[in-house]
């Protein structure tokens, strides 16, 4: 296997037109059916989450529509009002499938918001550290060290124990969990970019720090962050689910997938498995799809492995 790697011709082929964005995108996924499946899966989950109010068989928030007689029905039952329940119902007579669709909305919303905001903060701080240096850098990087030396789930648990629970609080806790690694990543890339001539040229042209940062440094340092972003999102989905499962996450009025699983926890030992298992399956499937795509992106970004593709 090593000989093959060493013999490979690594010089780029000349006079080929620059690939378009779509071609480059296709090249990343070509010959990797798992990653394509992951990509399709992600799109499906996002679509279901967005369309949940229109495609769910039942509105789980509308208490008037629930019937306690429909409680704890196994998958494939027909509800009192004639609705067919593919995945069964929970103790309150809520259709599991509808609950999962709405839960998906909350889980995805929380994770996306937290990771995007957290990463933006992290990127900004990382660039700032690289650009300014000195005490700004010291403070930012010490804060990064402090954050990273502490396990994320415990930090979130602590913050929620202190500030109370709720969707907004979970998002804050996850933002605090997301920024540090990006700051470190961006700073490392930005530091090597800072040594290049275009930055000197921009400085000589008298551009402001802000402009250098947003127009020159940001576009050239952002790609490693984009590569880890999917992993970050799947991590946040898992963290939110865990916190909600432990009862310190989202409130009972806005059940995410984690809370739905917690609701079924009490019924598991009596063999009523569908309440916990279906939301969990969806959770795992979604995280798995994101991780498969994320692995592909990471492998593609690794030049050692790319030479062998």
């Amino acid at each position, binding site marked *: *296997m090593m000989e093959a790697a060493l013999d490979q011709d690594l010089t780029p082929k000349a006079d080929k037109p620059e690939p378009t964005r779509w071609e480059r995108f296709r090249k990343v996924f070509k010959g990797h059916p798992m990653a394509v499946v992951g990509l399709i899966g992600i799109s499906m989950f996002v679509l279901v989450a967005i369309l949940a109010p229109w495609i769910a068989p039942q509105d789980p928030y509308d208490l008037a529509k629930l019937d306690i007689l429909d409680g704890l029905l196994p998958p494939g039952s027909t509800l009192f009002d004639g609705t067919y329940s593919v995945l069964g119902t929970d103790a309150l007579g809520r259709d599991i499938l509808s609950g999962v669709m709405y839960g998906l909305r909350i889980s995805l919303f929380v994770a996306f918001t937290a990771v995007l905001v957290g990463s933006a903060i992290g990127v900004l701080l990382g660039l700032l550290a690289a650009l300014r240096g000195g005490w700004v850098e010291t403070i930012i990087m010490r804060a990064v060290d402090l954050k990273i030396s502490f396990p994320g789930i415990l930090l979130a648990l602590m913050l929620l124990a202190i500030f109370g629970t709720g969707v907004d609080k979970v998002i804050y806790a996850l933002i605090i969990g997301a920024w540090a690694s990006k700051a470190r990543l961006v700073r490392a890339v930005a530091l090597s970019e800072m040594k290049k001539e275009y930055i000197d040229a921009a400085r000589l042209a008298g551009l402001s720090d802000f402009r250098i940062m947003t127009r020159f440094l940001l576009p050239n340092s952002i790609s490693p962050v984009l590569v880890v972003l999917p992993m970050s999102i799947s991590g946040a989905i898992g963290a939110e689910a865990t916190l909600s499962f432990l009862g310190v996450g989202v409130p009972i009025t806005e059940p995410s997938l984690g809370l739905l699983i917690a609701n079924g926890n009490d019924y598991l030992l009596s063999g009523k498995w569908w309440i916990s298992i279906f939301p969990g399956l969806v959770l795992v499937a979604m995280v798995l799809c994101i991780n498969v795509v994320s692995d592909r992106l990471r492998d593609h970004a690794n030049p050692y492995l790319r030479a062998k593709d």
Partner: protein
Amino acid sequence: MLSFVLRRLGQSSVLVLIMSVLVFFGMYVVSDPVAVLASDDFTEEDRIALAQELGVDRPLLVQYFSFLSNVARGDFGTSFVYNRPVMDLIIERLPATLEVAFLAIGLGLIIGVPMGIYSGLNRKKRSTKSISFMTTVGYSIPNFWQALLLILVFAVWFRWLPASGRGDTTMLFGIPVSFLNLDGLSHMILPAVNLAIYKICMQTRLARSGTQEVMFQDYMTFARAKGISRARLVRRHLARNILIPIVTITGLELGGLIAFSTVTETVFSWPGIGKLLLDSIHNADRPVVVAYLILIVLMFVVINFVVDVLYALLDPRIRYT
């Protein structure tokens, strides 16, 4: 090396101090222990008496400093709920957490590292592809849901293993442990496996990516050119080099594992410190939460330090001056 140690110690004490402030004042803001502990028929006088008894009627700063001076003497106060010294509660539950954590790490290393080296060496094989897919799945399953699956399959459907509790314990040097008798061991298996699955996936991936990187190094090509046997190549040149990140991350993850055992212990009702923390958060048992978090910070500081030193010993290129 000495100045490095001293500087690190200074940094660590500042870190611990900052965390103690955050944790203590944070907990004060959130919970009123009097409201939690007082029953409905309490009069105003009863409440004041209770507040005095708990010492929460004093000014915040006074409380903090008395807390700090007590901690320096190893006294974390008395639990509001159990009415016993917090340290006793934590020490009592620590062995349960540690034995599961160590079993999980052991399983992770024994299964994960060989699997990772194998898949790093045989990139194109079908078995490698399935190992890699398995690790992705293992990474993607949330710990708590995996625990529920284990309970459902092994405790509810097959009825092979108990779903919760610790079972019988055997005294070992005065410490109750579960792994020395059959009943305790059977209670231990599900929580340990639940923690280990993530470990196994992580160790596999670390070993695999380490192998892939090391295989491309010049010294590996040179070693092969010298005609060294494959077994020796793997053992002497490959394993030694990939062990560096694995040791680091295993060390760092030991703290994470103990912290993360909150989830596993809650699901399996395993009476360790993780379950204690979660119960205490729900009961607003402030002294226990504060003590737990401060101890975890201390533990992380120590672990980070030890790992740094180990790193320096394993990799001669790193020298702290």
